[in-house]
């Protein structure tokens, strides 16, 4: 039986991504625990995260509206499989809760962690509020996770 040859190549690559003007303002807001959405002047949809145009109307977005740091759990899960955190490069071990949360004042949902890993205690329709970190850097993980309001 012939031995299989394999060539190992390690990738150590980094990219410096530009955030864009709207995301810069959004990130600044996070440093002050302030969440905002951009409202489309055409369809009225309030977008998180911010982006240059409403994809449906193709209108430039410029109207900032305030968004609460709490809202409704529209979707949830508890993840048991370990996953690579794309920002830190670390492996996040389960179980951990995750949800799509429609914050009060926004029309899109925010994908974030839930501090609840028991599926029998989770359901669509629960309300959840953000738990912020002590140190704020201007990134979406300035919110450590959301806790279910019971």
């Amino acid at each position: 039986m012939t031995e299989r040859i394999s060539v190992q190549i390690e990738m150590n690559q980094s990219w410096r991504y530009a955030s864009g003007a709207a995301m810069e303002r959004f990130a600044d807001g996070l440093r002050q625990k302030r969440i905002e959405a951009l409202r489309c002047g055409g369809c009225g949809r309030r977008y998180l995260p911010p982006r240059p145009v409403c994809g449906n109307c193709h209108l430039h977005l410029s109207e900032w509206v305030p968004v609460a740091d709490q809202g409704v759990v529209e979707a949830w899960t508890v993840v048991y499989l370990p996953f690579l955190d794309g920002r830190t490069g670390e492996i996040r071990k389960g179980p951990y809760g995750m949800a799509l949360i429609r914050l009060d004042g926004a029309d899109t949902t925010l994908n974030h962690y839930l501090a609840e890993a028991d599926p029998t205690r989770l359901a669509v329709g629960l309300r959840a509020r953000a738990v912020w970190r002590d140190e704020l850097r201007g990134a979406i993980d300035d919110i450590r996770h959301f806790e279910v309001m019971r």
Partner: protein
Amino acid sequence: MRPDIVVAGIGETTPVPADSRSIPEMVLEAVEAALADAGIGHRDLDAVTTASVDMFDGITASNIAVTEVVGAVMKPEARISADGLTAVAHAACQIWSGAYETVLVAAHAKTSIAPHRDLTQWALDPIHVQPLGVDFLTCAGLQARLLADRDPGAERRWAEIAAKRRGGAMSPDRILASPLVASPLRLGMCAVPGDGASAVVLRAKKKGIGGPILAGIGYDLEPHALGDRDLTRWSGLERALDRAGKTAGFEGRRPHFDLAEPSCLFPHEEELFVAAADLDEMTEISPDGGLLAGYIPIVAGLSRMTSATRYFRRNRKAGALALVHGTWGPAAQGQVVAILGGAAS
């Protein structure tokens, strides 16, 4: 009968070494300019074809970053990861097939976000070539070495071509004195990479829709291993040009081109281009300067198309033809051409 295709609108960002905007912001500028130039809105688009490379953008499924700004929400979008002129070639097939009538083509890249040379290594045969640290510049150097060794006057000529393409900013002597980067290629002979986006609106010709006609398209992939290729010529371009000529109806003969807009990243490539395209002295080559002073991978061929379109708008000469060209891969392994015909009435 295939419908005639008109280049109805063009738009692009000004190429810069580093664009501080996000990719969606950058592409939006090019797209809005092209739509405005074509006199249409995003609702008039039947489909979008985009060009981007995940490894260059550092994003898997990199076209997701531009879906909203190119107007592809709830629309068909096809994404090609090669020079943007291939997206034009594909959009042309889409229109000729009857599937769509109005297609937006957009291409983008930002070389400032990561060392571009390093990224090109990941395109090379990972078993025999990549482990040696070879990148696209190395391959260009190997081809240039092959040409220089059999032609003692080559390096001086290349310095002169490069000086001309840099608009006189560097003299041939200064270019020959600039550091070697991949012998015999010197820093002054290499196109300066940057950031940018270009967009073009292609439309099936109908009453009221004007612009140069996209008469023919052709593309080719040479073998990957440099040793499998004849590096003294761009035979891939010869084949691509034959195919484009065929789709344009020039069976067997090479027409006279009034204008050529090649994608040449080094002066030796310009000589390879002229030889393969069999151009005569009457053809104007890159009156806008070409890519040496600044180029954006993936965007390059599409930006040659916008340059050629501007030429047609300046020079309304009946029967004029332009040869537009793009490349991708090591030593231009991939070649793509479009033949544009004079303004449609």
